[in-house]
């Protein structure tokens, strides 16, 4: 997942996976303070996005046309 990816375009699964990966990266403690702060900000944004998706989710249902 590229850092520049627009968060609003991510699915819940993508955003959650990125958040998870980001936490793992922070856990390793290898990043500079500057990068850590940037990751933290992105992590917060990912969290907000996931939260919003959960709150606003409405099951989308469609029916497939099956060729004979």
């Amino acid at each position, binding site marked *: 997942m590229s850092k520049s990816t627009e968060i609003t375009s991510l*699915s819940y699964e993508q955003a959650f996976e990125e958040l998870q990966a980001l936490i793992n990266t922070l856990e390793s403690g290898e990043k500079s303070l500057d990068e850590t*702060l940037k990751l*933290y900000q992105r992590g917060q944004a990912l969290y907000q996005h996931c939260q919003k998706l959960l709150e606003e989710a409405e099951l989308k249902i469609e029916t497939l046309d*099956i060729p004979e």
Partner: protein
Amino acid sequence: MSEQLSLFPEPKRSYSIIEINTYLRTLLEGDSLLQDIWVEGEISNLSRPKSGHLYFTLKDSQAAIRCVMWRSQTARLAAIPQDGMAVEVHGSISVYEAAGQYQLYADQIRPAGEGLLYQEFNRLKNKLEAEGLFDPAHKRPIPEMPAVIGVVTSPTGAAIQDILNTLKRRYPLARVVLAPAAVQGDAAPGEIASAIHALNQQIQPDVILVGRGGGSIEDLWAFNQEIVARAIFASDAPVISGVGHEIDFTISDFVADLRAPTPTAAAELAVPDQIELAGILLERRETLQRQIKDRLNEQRWALGQTASRLQQVSPAAQLAAGRQTLDELFRRGERALQHHIKLQQTRLSGLSQQLDSLSPQNVLRRGYAAVSSGGRPVTSLKDIQPGNQIHVQVRDGSFDARVTAKEEKNEQIN
């Protein structure tokens, strides 16, 4: 009774009824065919008194046989049979001695025709198993959070409502694509297979749910068809089957990547619960906040450490010492300068007194006179001639005079 045979006819011995009936019962129970037998017919005169035992007559167009099923056996029945049902009954045939009635002691009852279906089921199951269609190595993992869920079932059945309600409740983030198919009747197997195929071709869902609600074994039979089994096996997307009730096992269940006991359970297995997700999300956020807090604290501490180390190696102390030395030097320099100036002043005033003592005024004060002529001092006879006008300075003034004579001294003066 062979021991009763004799060359001489004798009046035949009478037997008690119980002796006869017991004899017959022993005969029947010694026959292996009669002790493990399936009998088919229609149920009639069914009664189930308080004892819980089941009494009925099994009949067909030509004959009838009394049947009894003990209460302990009836507990294993999926449903209590009804009059008029065509069934196959398994059990053993023996004699009820008190009534002199032979009857079928039943231990299993199944709908008629099920035996054939069961054989067919086993044949196909063995064949597909031998081909490896049930091999765990072929099972695809079910994604944790599917974005697109394909559903193959009847658009009008109870199953679709159960599935949609479950998905709405648990995971409304998903997009659901229903591929409608008849789930019973002759057309069902082909339609189910086509629907699975069409979903894979057109949608590529993350997971496919295949199933239907409960029904008789005939109702569920489409899910025991080879064409359905092969469509599930060929699906690119992992398939979760949910056919009938917990007790129903179909070939589709064996081929599917995951078997769910019911359509509702299939939907539950396909998606996480949003309430759990929200909880996990909150945990992640706490982790994130803890991480940044820890990191900042760590960083602050490191900065403090570095600052104190910097202080230790700082030139401030040296600078202070240097400044003191410099002050000292400056003060010493100043003192030396003052001393020097004073000395010079002393010498200067000495010189000044010396100079004063040498001034002509002082000489005049001591009673001498200074003579000049034409503005030039007269210090020798050569400077004047008799008759010259001279100017004479004395202590308290001056006067003019005229030279009248010159008298040379004997000794030479410079």
